[in-house]
């Protein structure tokens, strides 16, 4: 369902969409059932002349079963949702697959800085490429990101990747993602960060290895020319 609203551009997207769909169908069925019974009662038991309401205390055992059975079913469905929610959470947030490359993502009022490893694929060397508001990644590559903030809270959130992680000043938070679909996607800062919060946007470019290498080289030229 979610994939019709927004493309699934990372390896986590499908599993997060799965849990969203699962919850949607479970709670959707419950909602329709509960609202259906509510409206049925409202229509069926409208006041009629000469008809007195029934006296039901709801404290006898056979009456309470009408509450206890759905109550236990809610518990069962809660457990089902939890099992899958925790499974997805584990895969996306707790477990970190080994990185092919590592990038630094730095939030500041009000822009994003990205430090890409250069052609040597190692962060912290001289050929690192630093950009503002443009984030370039290769398809089918597992990235670890090191998320930092230099002032207030920000949130690194790429909807198409189903990725979200707050950035906290004074900490480096590591997470991962693996882009799986070519294209470019919007992203917004997802934690209020002052008057420029509404313009703190960036764009992520998911490229083929060849395109990515071409981009890195073009950036390297810019750097050498400016030097």
């Amino acid at each position, binding site marked *: 369902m*979610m994939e019709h609203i927004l493309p699934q551009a990372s390896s*986590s997207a499908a599993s*997060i969409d799965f*849990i*969203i769909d699962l*919850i*949607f169908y479970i*709670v*959707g069925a419950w909602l329709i059932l*509960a*609202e259906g*019974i*509510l409206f049925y*009662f*409202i229509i069926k*038991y409208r*006041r009629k002349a000469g008809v*007195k*309401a*029934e*006296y*039901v*205390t*709801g*404290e006898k055992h056979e*009456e*309470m079963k*009408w*509450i206890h059975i*759905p*109550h236990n079913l*809610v518990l069962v469905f*809660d457990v089902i*949702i*939890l099992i899958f929610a*925790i499974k997805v*959470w584990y895969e996306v*947030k707790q477990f970190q697959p080994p990185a092919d490359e590592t990038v630094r993502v730095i939030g500041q009022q009000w822009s994003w800085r990205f430090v890409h490893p250069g052609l040597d694929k190692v962060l912290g060397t001289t050929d690192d490429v630093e950009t503002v508001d443009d984030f370039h990644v290769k398809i089918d590559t597992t990235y670890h990101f090191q998320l930092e903030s230099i002032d*207030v*809270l920000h949130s690194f959130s790429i909807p198409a990747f*189903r*990725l*979200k992680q*707050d950035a*906290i*000043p*004074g*900490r480096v*938070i590591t997470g991962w993602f693996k882009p799986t679909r070519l294209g470019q996607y*919007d992203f*917004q*800062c*997802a*934690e*209020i*960060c*002052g*008057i420029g*919060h*509404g313009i703190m946007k960036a764009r992520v470019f998911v490229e083929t290895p060849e395109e990515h290498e071409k981009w890195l080289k073009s950036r390297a030229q810019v750097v050498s020319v400016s030097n």
Partner: protein
Amino acid sequence: MSVEHHHEEHGHHAGHHEQTFWQKYVFSTDHKVIGMQYLFTGMLMAVVGGFLSYVFRMQLAFPGEIVPFYGLVTPASYGSLSTNHGTIMIFWVAMPVLIAAFGNFLIPLMIGCDDMVFPRLNRLSYQIFLISAILILATLFLPHGGFAGAWTAYPPLSVSEQYNSTPYAAPLWVLAVALEIVAFLIGGINFITTLMNARAPGMKMFDVPIVIWMIVLASVLFMASVGPLVAGAIMLLFDQTIGTGFFSPAKGGDPILWQHLFWFFGHPEVYVVLLPAMGIVAEVITVFARKKMFGYRTIIYSTIATCIISFFVWAHHQFVAGIDPRMANVFSITTLIISIPIAEMTFLYIATLYGGSIQLTSAMLFALSFLVAFLIGGVTGIFLGSTGSDIYFHDTYFVVAHFHFTFFPIAIIAVFAGLYYWFPKMFGRYMNETLGKIHFWGTFIPFNLIFLPLFYSGAAGTHRRIYSYQHFSELSIPSVQNMQVIATYALLVLLAFQVVFVVNFFWSMFMGKKAGNNPWNANTLEWVAPSPPPHGNFQEMPTVYRGPYEYSVPGRDLDYWPQNVP
């Protein structure tokens, strides 16, 4: 002791001298007058909060255009508008109206005593509340504008003017919230003591109407959860004004600490306002379905369970905030556990309608629509409470829509149910039913049209608190932007229909059809007192013989059996 003393005092007052206007309406210690003061203050603040939402919704639908009656919305003013809309609606509308107004008006009347046990403390509570309300309104007009760091006031943004650009409004905003909390702490002490000590002879705890149970449990919950927030607010104020570093990483502090302190209060707070609303709905549906509450004791036990569990769910607001990811699972489990008592309560309310004789008065329409809307608010919470899906929905419009599908039924729909229902007791006259029904449909339909589209916006990846989506190519496409336009038009319709209510309310107050003591043939004790009840409430103090919901008892001619009738 204090109760005895208090009875004498009232006899003295009533017997000897006329009260002046000031004594009677402004500095009164009468619980009904204080309740009305909270009600009218809350309604005035609702006008302010509603106006703020009108301005920023206009900006969201038609970005960059001049908003009539306001002007141009800048990024800074957008932040202030949405921050103060949230703050005012929660702390200065939902809490004063649901807890303080209904609590003050109803507790002594429904448990059959003549006033609160601490009437002067009650006076003080409103006085502090009024100061806090004036203060929060004043922050909107300070140089550099109102506080714009969201109602959650996360540091470091809220700490330093260098970050939030509001040097005056930020500390005063914190101070106003802290004062408001003090007012409700004092009020809460009063509510709890009154219920414990001043019940009418014969009234056992399980003869107490659900709305009173709920308001008092909400007060207990508030008092137990608010301590960390008060501590946090003072730490924040010190960080802002005298340069401490509780929440500043540069000085060795931790911004996440504030989030824990805030949400430790902030999540129980949801139930603090939910419970009185559910209580109001319980009273209204039993009277207008002529039914005994289905499983009265189960509702009380579920409520107590909800109160206890609500202390263990707070970090579900922080799944992606940088807490240990393993901890998120624990809070996800507790969050889904709390859905069980709440679902149970909802089932019990629906079951109460079974076999009833339902009369769709304005009050009943609002009460039933509370259940209809709250079910949607409840189930959409599951998406946010389960860790896996919250990664995506956190801080999107989905959260906004979910939140308003719980809070709008609580703070607006249930309050209207309560006002239409208790209006004859408050003012001795009926409200006009035709206008009431017009107001109901004009409120409930637009409410759904505001927030249902926002679920879609959130699912499409629209994040909150952004003043204009024109900068984002994927979010300014028509299918997403149109949702904002629909929501704004619906809001305009909703606001326009509130005029019907205001006219009906004030016209009926003076010109409405006169109501007797018990216009709805209800059982609870407030309907024994004259309408409106005089100072001291009851002509003859009632004695209680049975529970509050003995409607349609077999073998009786009348379909109700008031608590005070042997």
